[in-house]
């Protein structure tokens, strides 16, 4: 579903994309051209290519405008939207099988035993080891969650290419309550306040997994930042990345407890530090 980006710190965006719904329909025909123009303007004003905002198209080809922002930028908080439709049941298994690549790469197939459709390098581009959350097993094969669009993508990898381990932890984020519940062995171990996405850049809901743990060298993410298999539904790129949803600290602790991010889940730095000492890669990461 097309959504209008709300980034009130950027007056240009607000001027071009009026909030009045009647204007959206009127301007839809010219939206693509406007977006292109916006890209040109923003690029010309940005010195760090890594922070260049991307004007992208959503999966439904509806024009989207994404903010120019570092992780430290805080979108104007908006009332947390009430999720429509049924809320997914809590995905916090007592134990999750995790598959860590054992070689230089891992072949991925669409079906167990099927032709290889892609090969993923190990370690990942960030240098983190390639680790998957396993969601299904067959003899000699495991189906794993993949960090790719569309959200929920999975693929089959041979067990000969991975080492299977067991993870007792799970994370469940509530976008309604702006909380993160840490589960161990199926029970809540601790609950943390978090910031989730704004109404315009919502944190996508679904069942995901942690894919990497960074000690960021750039500002805004706090001491640690987890990558996840989740991707923004509205930002196809951000800060030089693909719009991947992260779980990280922040230098804007006042935003914690509200819908204030571009889609990532922010935590107090002490809290993300606590998680970084506990969680394996592959840990379930649910947003509901």
């Amino acid at each position, binding site marked *: 579903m097309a959504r209008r980006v709300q980034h009130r710190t950027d007056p240009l965006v607000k001027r071009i994309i009026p909030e009045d719904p009647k204007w959206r329909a009127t301007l839809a025909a010219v939206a693509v051209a406007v977006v292109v123009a916006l890209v040109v303007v923003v690029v010309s004003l940005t010195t760090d290519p890594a922070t260049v905002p991307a004007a992208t198209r959503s999966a439904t080809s509806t024009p989207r405008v994404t903010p120019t922002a570092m992780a430290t930028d805080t979108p104007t908080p908006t009332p947390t939207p009430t999720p429509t439709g049924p809320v997914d049941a809590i995905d916090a298994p007592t134990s999750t099988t995790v598959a860590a690549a054992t070689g230089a790469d891992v072949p991925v197939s669409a079906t167990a035993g099927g032709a290889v459709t892609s090969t993923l390098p190990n370690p990942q581009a960030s240098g983190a080891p390639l680790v998957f959350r396993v969601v299904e097993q067959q003899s000699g094969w495991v189906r794993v969650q993949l960090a790719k669009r569309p959200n929920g993508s999975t693929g089959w990898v041979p067990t000969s290419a991975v080492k299977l381990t067991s993870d007792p932890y799970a994370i469940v984020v509530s976008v309604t309550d702006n909380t993160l519940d840490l589960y161990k062995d199926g029970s809540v171990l601790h609950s943390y306040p978090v910031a989730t996405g704004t109404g315009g850049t919502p944190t996508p809901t679904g069942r995901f997994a942690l894919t990497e743990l960074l000690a960021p060298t750039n500002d805004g993410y706090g001491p640690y930042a987890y990558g996840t298999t989740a991707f923004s539904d509205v930002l196809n790129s951000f*800060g030089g990345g693909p719009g991947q949803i992260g779980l990280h600290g922040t230098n804007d602790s006042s935003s914690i407890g509200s819908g204030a991010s571009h889609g990532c889940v922010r935590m107090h730095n002490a809290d993300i530090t606590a998680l970084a000492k506990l969680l394996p890669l592959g840990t379930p990461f649910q947003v509901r």
Partner: protein
Amino acid sequence: MLRSRIAAAAVGATVLGITAALVPTVSNAADPAVATATPVVQWADSADDFTAVPVSESDVPLSDGWNFLVGYNGEDPATTSITDVATFDSNGIAAKPDQFVPLLHALPSAVSPDDVPALVSTASANVGTGSQVGLTVGDAATPSITDGTVFATNGFTGDTTTWDGSESTTDLVTDLKADDKVVTGYFVTLGSIQLQQQQQQQQRSIPNAPQGLFANPTAATSRVAAVAAAVTPVAGGAASIAVGDTTTYFTPQPTAAATVGAASYTVTQATTSGVQVTGSGFAPNEVISFGLSLDGNGGELEGLTLVADADGNVSGTIVLPASFVPGPGTYSLAVVGNSSGQSLFTPLVITADPAPVATPISGRATFTG
């Protein structure tokens, strides 16, 4: 029920399925101070395990397994069961009152005189007062026919065994050679020797009464060396006898059972510190082997063995080869008594190792923030 090494091998092959090349893994091996069980252990604990042989036959073709001579009191061999003349209980087999029951067992192949000392040196028996043990003999030309006996005067006592009074084993070898005889099997008699002698007197009127078999037993009645089982047979009874590669227990065959020590083991635990196994119901001192399978794939864990104690109990740790534990799952652990052929399966739940805590990588984050 009779068991044999052949049966054990067959069971093992069926149980273990695919055999894979394995690297022997450390296990608690047998205490070298304790002799392990003979290669074959069997139980003769019911009527089905005994074949009646008419006493009127002077030359006895021994059937496989245990035979008993019948007809001393005019019984019909065709309809007589061992339970008509003997009883079974936890102490073994014993003759009923006023019965004399010779039990005979053939060797897999006749033993020449020169090989008799080796045969005797390892023979043992656990019999009650009044019961006797010894060897059966036959002509070297027709070794399938047993036509004589030689009594171990004081039971099987290894190299000091004496025969038919005071003959040494060396003397016995000389006599066997002189008569062109070979050893065809072994025996144990149940009931009092006095009763047998009385019966022998009565049989003088019976045509074809055996002259060689039990015709002139000695009167020695000392209890012979015990086999491992801690059973005290009653007077005139027998608990066990071991000759050659076979041990027979006349006590009730136990039911083998085994369990693993924990509800689950991680892959690393199973392949490094090992899996605790506790079992019972195996043959005394027999070697216990193992197999492991998952989803029909697996095989014998070669080189992984434990040894049962004198009561047939087994306890120890087996370290599984990593090649047999590719990942988590509910495995089937096969436990096989090498001598008795008793085997069973017990589930072995192996879980994945704990996933390691992520190690942070220093780098630029590009998440949505």
